[in-house]
């Protein structure tokens, strides 16, 4: 069998993906949310996007995943050097964990997993580790509406990592998880680069970021005010703790 022709968007064989954002702008009506972003998420690294509320974090993430449309001329998003350009198939390499997980009430978890599985090409490798570690197996055949919020969030995490994605995007991932599940999840994130997955996450919990992230993209008012590794941030802010460094940076940006 020959490989199928590529649709818009890159589908390289495997390995962690690099994301490049070039001059990205987005406005909702008169409100300018992203005001020209330029940065790179390094392949095989864990990058955290931090910033105050309404800084544009969600819009940025949704732009990468394609939920938010970027009109032509408003910047580019490149996955391994290839612009995504409103394509579809590039998402075969992306796992996404939205903030609030809501699945159709009447389906079972197994049906949801089968559905997302069915939307990928046949032969896509599957990673069931989180199901096992969250001990979700007994829950899989129950309708989603009977599952607790925590369980749904676990399912959400499972879906994000299910296909050994080259890039996984996590939006406030631990918000709904209990401490044990949270621990399991963090292990998964930390192990991701070794398994060929680049991680892009947002969080309000700075200790968590300190724990998980290699790099930080600091977003304020739709602009990047800092990008780099955590040590370089600490150094620049002349702080020992991330919290302090963030506060300093914020003050500086005003």
């Amino acid at each position, binding site marked *: 069998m020959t490989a199928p022709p590529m649709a818009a968007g890159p589908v390289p064989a495997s390995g962690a993906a690099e994301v490049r954002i070039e001059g990205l702008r987005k406005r909702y009506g008169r409100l300018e949310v992203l005001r020209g972003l330029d940065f790179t998420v390094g392949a095989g690294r864990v990058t955290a996007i931090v910033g105050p509320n309404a800084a544009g974090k969600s819009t940025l993430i949704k732009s990468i995943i394609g939920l938010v449309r970027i009109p032509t001329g408003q910047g580019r998003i490149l996955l391994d050097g290839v612009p995504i350009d409103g394509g*579809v198939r590039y998402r075969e390499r992306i796992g996404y964990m*939205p903030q609030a997980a809501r699945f159709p009430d*009447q389906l079972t978890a197994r*049906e949801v997993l089968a559905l997302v599985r*069915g939307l990928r090409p046949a032969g896509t490798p599957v990673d069931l580790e989180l199901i096992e570690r969250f001990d979700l197996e007994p829950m899989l055949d129950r309708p989603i509406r009977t599952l607790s919020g925590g369980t749904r969030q676990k399912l959400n995490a499972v879906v994000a990592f299910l296909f050994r994605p080259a890039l996984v995007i996590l939006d406030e991932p631990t918000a709904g998880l209990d401490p044990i599940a949270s621990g399991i999840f963090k292990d998964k994130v930390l192990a991701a680069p070794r398994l060929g997955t680049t991680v892009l996450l947002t969080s309000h919990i700075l200790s968590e970021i300190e724990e998980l992230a290699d790099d930080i993209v600091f977003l304020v008012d739709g602009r990047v005010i800092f990008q780099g590794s955590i040590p370089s941030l600490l150094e620049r802010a002349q702080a020992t703790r991330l919290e302090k460094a963030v506060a300093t940076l914020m003050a500086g940006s005003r």
Partner: protein
Amino acid sequence: MTSFRRVLSSQLRNVIRSRWMVGHALLLLAVTILLLRFGGSGERALLSLVNLVLLLVPLVSVVFGTLYVYNAREFIELLLAQPVGRGSVYLGLFGGLALPQTVALWIGVGGPLVLQTVAEPAVVRPLVMLLAVGTCLTLVFTAFALCVAVLVEERARGFGAALLVWLGCTVVYDGLILLLLTTFRDYPLETPVLILTFLNPVDLARVVLLLTFDVALLMGYTGSVFSDLFGGGLGIVIAFGTLLVCAAIPLAAGFRWFGRKDF
């Protein structure tokens, strides 16, 4: 295509299993049986069924459809984060809503009527027309529901907008026609009114059904335009064609908006 099928089948499963849809089918079933049992003479019962199909079916389609899409918002986002085109997701939603409602209509209204028909074969044609028109209205108002849910961000507003669409088609539009008729009563208004009737799916459905349900005789009174157009088989074909166009326009508009929407 396969991803459309998969999205559709998951939506179908979700909608069919919901109590709403079962409730809708049971409601139609109960009302139909009650009307057939206690609704007076056969003709009268059938005319009440016409109102059921003309009023309740669009109301449920547009309100249920709108609310369903708001409820499914996060799931739609999850789907869109998968390697699926927006068209597949949109059409999957539409099919997932329209098909079960059509089935509910056929079971709820068609079921009891079929039993009735065994005793009274004359009901076959009205029955077929009733179900065909009901199906068209389901398609039209499900398409309206998608438009509303795509365009209006806020759930409460969307609910209001859905009700307004229903109210507009069933009441306000006819009020405006009547106003037009009384204002310009000295002008020949048959043709303009006929065109206006064609532009509102509920009005068109009503006229098609009335002509089937033996009040056809009335139209003789209003002169040739109505009976010429609606009387023959061609008129029925045109009417159903127009109803499908009425569904296609909002469906296409919603498709476009859905494709451009930021979630």
